[in-house]
């Protein structure tokens, strides 16, 4: 990042915080509705100091990782099946499109029913929120594979699993990355939403505690944390993978 861009950013965010502080100090809204950045910062420091913040982050990220992992594996397998076996596409495919439009939060009651109050339940909600985005993108990716790749590979003796791992998956990878990214966005929403409703550890739980105790500054503090983690994952993990894949495939 060039120096002057960084400077602009610093100035911008400083102004933002100052305006926020000014609004909260003026009496437009009482403090219980609109806390000051100072209070929010205090809450963050306090939660960091007693360790609950880091425990919450670790818990949420662990669940996210497992849930997203399941979604990726499951979605890729399902997507490949749908793309390669027409009957699977015609049957399960239409179900997938439907399930994809159920908000993951709607699964919470059933998750509690089926998994109880366990990490399993939250992971289920996370995974089911993300899996169909992965599935649909994998499906599109495999469908769009240049048929010459597949024919060349078959001609050179690839078949079955060999064909899948050596050709189908790498060839569909640029699309799959998009699916992973979308999946991650849904999974992150899913994990926070589920924790909020399950109220069983994690950042969503901390958000809920803030809410239950009508502590707005804790709510905002946790939202900031959620946002920072989201930015980090987007900016470091996905941007990197995407750039690498895109340049490797000669797409940019």
């Amino acid at each position, binding site marked *: 990042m060039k120096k002057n861009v960084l400077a602009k950013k610093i100035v911008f965010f400083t102004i933002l915080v100052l305006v926020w502080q000014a609004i909260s100090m003026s009496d437009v809204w*009482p403090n219980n509705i609109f806390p000051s950045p100072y209070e929010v910062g205090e809450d963050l420091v306090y939660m960091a100091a007693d360790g609950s913040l880091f425990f919450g982050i670790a818990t949420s990220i662990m669940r996210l990782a497992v849930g997203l992992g399941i979604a990726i594996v499951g979605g890729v397998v399902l997507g490949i099946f749908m793309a390669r076996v027409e009957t699977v596409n015609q049957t399960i495919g239409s179900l997938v499109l439907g399930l994809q439009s159920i908000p993951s939060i709607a699964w919470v009651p059933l998750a509690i029913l089926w998994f*109880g*109050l366990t990490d399993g339940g939250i992971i289920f909600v996370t995974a089911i929120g993300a899996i169909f985005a992965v599935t649909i993108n994998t499906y599109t990716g495999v469908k769009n594979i240049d048929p010459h790749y597949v024919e060349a590979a078959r001609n050179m003796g690839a078949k079955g699993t060999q064909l899948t791992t050596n050709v189908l998956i790498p060839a569909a990878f640029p699309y799959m990355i998009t699916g992973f990214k979308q999946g991650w966005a849904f999974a992150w929403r899913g994990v926070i939403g589920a924790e909020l409703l399950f109220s*069983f550890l994690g950042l969503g739980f901390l958000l809920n505690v803030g809410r239950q105790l*009508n502590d707005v500054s804790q709510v905002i503090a946790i939202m900031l944390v959620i946002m920072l983690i989201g930015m980090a994952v987007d900016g470091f993990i996905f941007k990197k993978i995407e750039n690498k894949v895109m340049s490797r495939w000669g797409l940019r």
Partner: protein
Amino acid sequence: DSSREASGDTLRVAFFPNIGHAIPVVGMERGTFESDLGNSTNIETKLFDSGPQVIESLFAKSIDIAYVGPGPAINGFLKSEKHDVVILSGAASGGASFIVHPNSQINSADDFAGKRIAAPQIGNTQDVSLRNYLSENGLKPYEKGGSVVVLNIPNPDIYTLFTKGEIAAAWVPEPWATILVQELDGKRLFYEEELWPKNKFASVLLIGRQEYITANPEVVTKWLESHQQTANWINDNPLETRIIFNEFMQNTMGQTLSDSVVDEALVNLEITTDSVDDSIYTFAQRADSLGYLGRDGFSLDGIFFDIASNESVEETK
């Protein structure tokens, strides 16, 4: 539009579709409030299912008065800068029990170690009571390094988990306590009121926005009178109360509770306008020691509002 500012011709009341909130339910269904307030005041009712959300809505000036438990009431009073939220009256006392799962082999606090015990959301009445009870018995929750896993989950989820045997016990309000007993063979280990002085503690309170109250004292006065009358009527007519309550449930939620659940729940509750002030101070102290009331200490000065003198009651303990 429900967000418009307070005005004398509309009173916006919040309560839960729950047997502990029998006063507003019965009072509204029988038309008592409407006829007592007269034609000049239009009553809007809003159903909620969580206390904190009621407080949020009070803060946002979406509602004027509300029936909630002492936890949210105290939080609302303390979190609002100028003590916008005050207690006007009691609405129910008692009515929570400690129910153990038939297979859990819990007979007393000695058997709690290693068990999963549920209470509704953090900071609510049963949650505070449960955590306090644990510490009085020398137990600590899991997250504080102890051996008892305390789970804060909504009542319906407690029911689900109880069905599956995933929790050993639950500290729940009526009618859930009775439902667990009648439908799922739960064992009532004790009634919460047994742990309180005089066997009484506030479980539902009538609270309001100070701004609205001071602007519309006549409306609130009439409401309080009607509130008292309805409480008396309920205590005189438990059978009709059950019928009215179930009609209300059918109309608003599309379902009813079984008659025996409502009847037993009503017996376990006391519908009263007594706000059992002592229990509120005790409760606040317990909540504070759990870290629920912020880091800066607390004072309940002014939490009780006397409508007759139109000011907060200065009362210190």
